[in-house]
């Protein structure tokens, strides 16, 4: 890729925020001559998109798959995370011989616009002021994120993606791709998602945002300059959100009412129960790697998402006569994006005459199931992509 300007810099994992401007990833820079037109009416320029790639792009550039990440994910799909050192977040799905086989496909994953891992967002430096964007960053939408991704795909010289794949907010981006650029998406795999955010989900996001903003260390979003960070607020937001990613059955199976390192209650507000200790850990580890303002912006983008609203309220209009092959999956115990949401999308796709497969996977792992080793989900993802590959004339596993 000759025309990609790569910026590499040494990682300083102790300083969160370093990754925001100088990520441990390839970076596509878009100058003042290539502004990103945002839904709020602002032209954003310059801006940058940080991305990872795996595998090799074939000669006719027909084997590229874009992986879209969820709310708190990033571009580090299948490599150790530069800040936490943990394995890539979708290594169940992406890698040699996996459903997204890096030996056959060219996998691209970019940090979303508004993220904090190298794509321009509130944690990035605003070149006009030399200060961090903070709340001066314009409010963005899922279509804005996808528009930025499309500019990256243009930059990579790829006309049509073999597939766009994502779960949760990544699934929203996937569906937005098919609605906005139907001819550029040969197949789409959207998991545990919807074409619109429900009132309940907006409510949970509002809870999280209020927790962040209620933390005195948030300082109206200028915590970087004041040397603080709203650890507690963001931690509470993460704890609340994390409950919605699980299920009653999964929590019961993992923790029940078991005590944490003790046999009797302490008659205090310590984390007596294992489930409390687990949630506290989830909250505190999250704040180490995620920017609080970025969390506000990305949850807002999800809240605003409603594909039908952009098509006179008729979802089927968004997908009419698209040639993209769709596969949707939901999980029985997911109450954040329940099966009924996927089914509504399927009905709209059917009404539009679109080729769609839909499977509901039985699991007690809740919304998070798309990130976990759920064999039926992984098998179906693999079979769907394999059949699409054979139609596209790409190598298949031969299973």
């Amino acid at each position, binding site marked *: 890729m000759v025309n990609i300007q790569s910026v590499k810099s040494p990682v300083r994992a102790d300083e969160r925020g370093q990754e925001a401007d100088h990520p441990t990833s390839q970076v596509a820079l878009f100058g003042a001559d290539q502004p990103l037109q945002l839904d709020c009416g602002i032209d954003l320029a310059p801006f940058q998109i940080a991305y990872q790639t795996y595998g090799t792009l074939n000669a006719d550039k027909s084997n590229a798959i874009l992986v879209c990440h969820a709310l708190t994910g990033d571009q580090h799909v299948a490599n150790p995370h530069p800040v936490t050192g943990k394995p890539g977040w979708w290594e169940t799905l992406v890698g040699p011989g996996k459903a997204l086989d890096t030996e056959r496909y060219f996998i691209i994953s970019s940090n979303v616009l508004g993220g904090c891992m190298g794509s321009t967002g509130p944690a990035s430096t605003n070149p006009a002021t030399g200060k961090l964007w903070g709340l001066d960053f314009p409010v963005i939408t899922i279509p804005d994120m996808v528009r930025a991704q499309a500019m990256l795909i243009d930059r990579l010289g790829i006309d049509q993606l073999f597939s766009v794949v994502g779960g949760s907010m990544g699934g929203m981006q996937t569906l937005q791709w098919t609605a906005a650029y139907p001819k550029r998406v040969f197949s789409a795999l959207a998991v545990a998602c919807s074409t619109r955010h429900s009132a309940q989900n907006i409510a949970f996001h509002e809870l999280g945002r209020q927790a962040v903003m209620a933390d005195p260390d948030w300082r109206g979003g200028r915590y970087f300059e004041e040397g603080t960070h709203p650890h507690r607020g963001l931690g509470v937001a993460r704890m609340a959100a994390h409950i919605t990613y699980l299920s009653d059955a999964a929590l019961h199976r993992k923790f029940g009412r078991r005590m944490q390192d003790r046999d009797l209650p302490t008659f205090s507000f310590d984390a007596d129960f294992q489930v409390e200790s687990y949630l506290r850990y989830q909250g505190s580890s999250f704040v180490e790697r995620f920017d609080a303002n970025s969390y506000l912006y990305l949850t807002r983008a999800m809240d605003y998402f409603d594909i039908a609203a952009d098509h006179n309220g008729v979802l089927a209009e968004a997908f009419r006569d698209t*040639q993209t092959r769709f596969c949707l999956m939901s999980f029985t115990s997911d109450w954040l994006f329940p099966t009924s949401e996927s089914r509504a999308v*399927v009905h709209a796709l*059917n009404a539009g005459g679109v*080729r769609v*497969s*839909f499977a509901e996977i039985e699991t007690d792992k809740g919304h998070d199931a798309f990130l976990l080793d759920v064999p039926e989900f992984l098998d179906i993802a693999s*079979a769907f992509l394999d*059949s699409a590959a*054979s139609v596209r004339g790409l190598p*298949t596993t031969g299973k």
Partner: protein
Amino acid sequence: MSAEQQILPLVTPAPRGTEIYRGDHLLVAGMIERGSKVLDVGCGDGDLLQLLESRGIDGRGIELSREGVNRCVGKGLAVVQGDADTDLINYPNDAFDYVILSQTLQATRQPRVVLENLLRIGRRAIVSFPNFGFWKMRLQLLVGGHMPRTENLPATWYDTPNIHFCTIKDFVQLCDEINVKMERAVALDLYGRPLRLNAPWWFLNMFGEQGVFLLSRAAR
């Protein structure tokens, strides 16, 4: 990409040597032109859809059981989980060239409404069902005095999903009632072989183990 590219037959899932297509599936597939857009309602494990796709037909499916759907999607077929009784309403008029209801009519709650929906969604419908007028059925009820069970319908009366059995004669009467035109009617014997074409209705109703009908909307 053109529409034609989308309906190319799948290369990988060529039938394994041991698999032989069912007689009624071959008969149904023979009624459909290459390039047609087809919805298979109650597509089970997707055997018929695979046969159709191998013949260059753009096949889609609905299946009630989660296991069936997941096996179909696992074969790369475009199948969604759904119920013939409640979900056909979500499909627009004239969405398909053919809508197939294979061995499923007797398991629906409202066969008449389902049949009307088939011919609303598709320009033609292909319906196959077990014939309760088959001589073995009659004999079991007449001589045995118990609800019939056959090789193809082995379930007992108390755990069968089949709640609306009919005979070929009954079905023909329903088609007349709701103004449906029968373009082709074929009865198959116990081994899935078609009975002779010029046989009278009473003969088909007695010796057909199942009926396969190609239907279209009658001119009003």
